[in-house]
């Protein structure tokens, strides 16, 4: 009987202590949320006191024009390089030989034409 009374007292004291922890009007389930956010506590630290850059690209007529121009230029250059390599041919009549059949010293032609 004594033991039962003691354990009941301990349980009651525990409840009382728990009840004392709650502030006025505090949600009794606050611990659920507290435990959840304590587990991820370190994640906001990296963004605090910083500027998170979440920018978008605004349409600007001038920038768009410049970009299109640069794109066309790059495309033309790429095509030129590709086509030149594939469309080259050997010109036997202009193979960088002078009148005497010796290599022309004034340019680097080797007979391959673009």
């Amino acid at each position, binding site marked *: 009987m004594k033991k039962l009374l003691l354990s009941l007292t301990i349980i009651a004291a525990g409840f009382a202590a728990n009840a004392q922890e709650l502030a006025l009007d505090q949600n009794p389930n606050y611990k659920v949320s507290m435990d959840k956010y304590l587990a991820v506590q370190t994640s*906001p*630290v*990296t*963004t*605090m*006191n*910083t*500027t*998170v*850059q*979440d*920018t*978008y*690209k*605004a*349409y*600007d*007529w*001038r920038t768009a024009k410049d970009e299109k121009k640069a794109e066309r230029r790059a495309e033309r250059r790429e095509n030129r390089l590709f086509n030149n390599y594939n469309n080259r041919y050997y010109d036997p009549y202009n193979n960088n030989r002078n009148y005497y059949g010796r290599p022309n010293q004034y340019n680097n032609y080797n007979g391959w034409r673009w």
Partner: protein
Amino acid sequence: MKSIFTLLTLSAFLVLASCSHKVSRIDPAETPDISGTWNNTDSRLTAEAMINQSMTDKWLSEYVQAKGKKPVVIVGMVTNKSHEHIEAETFMADLEKSFITTSKVGLVQSGKKREEMRSEKADQQTNATVSTLKKFGLEKGADYILQGSINSIVDSYKRKKTVTYQINLELTDIQTNEVVWIGDKKIAKYVKN
């Protein structure tokens, strides 16, 4: 012949002078607009507006009246959702400075700087003398968190463009989630190329 030589020398000097790289100091308060993008003047105007609004708004007097002490603020995140790269720290630092210089608002460290503080404290636990080491668990808890956002609206056609920036700062009660103050600054620009 002599005059031609002088003229040539002078013109050569002028050509060389125009090609040279030149740097000069200017007053930070009078930064000229060059490209039309966000610049120092915008940052300064935002800082001035935010300082003025936050220091004169009723949230401060109400807190002091209710609690009998100055509020403590922690700086949170500012999200830049505009079309340009804007670093909010330039005007946020001015605002933080005003909190401290006016002694009306307390400020606690946040983010990576706070982590560094704690790291230093941890280091002191094993390396500093007992009389000088700083203890854990004695930091000042902030009453409010300052968060913000930067937005922009761009309207452009051919060589004309209007850009409107809207900077918002919000002060929220950490205990109750109640927003007690919202500061805003709108900057509109007309750019003609």
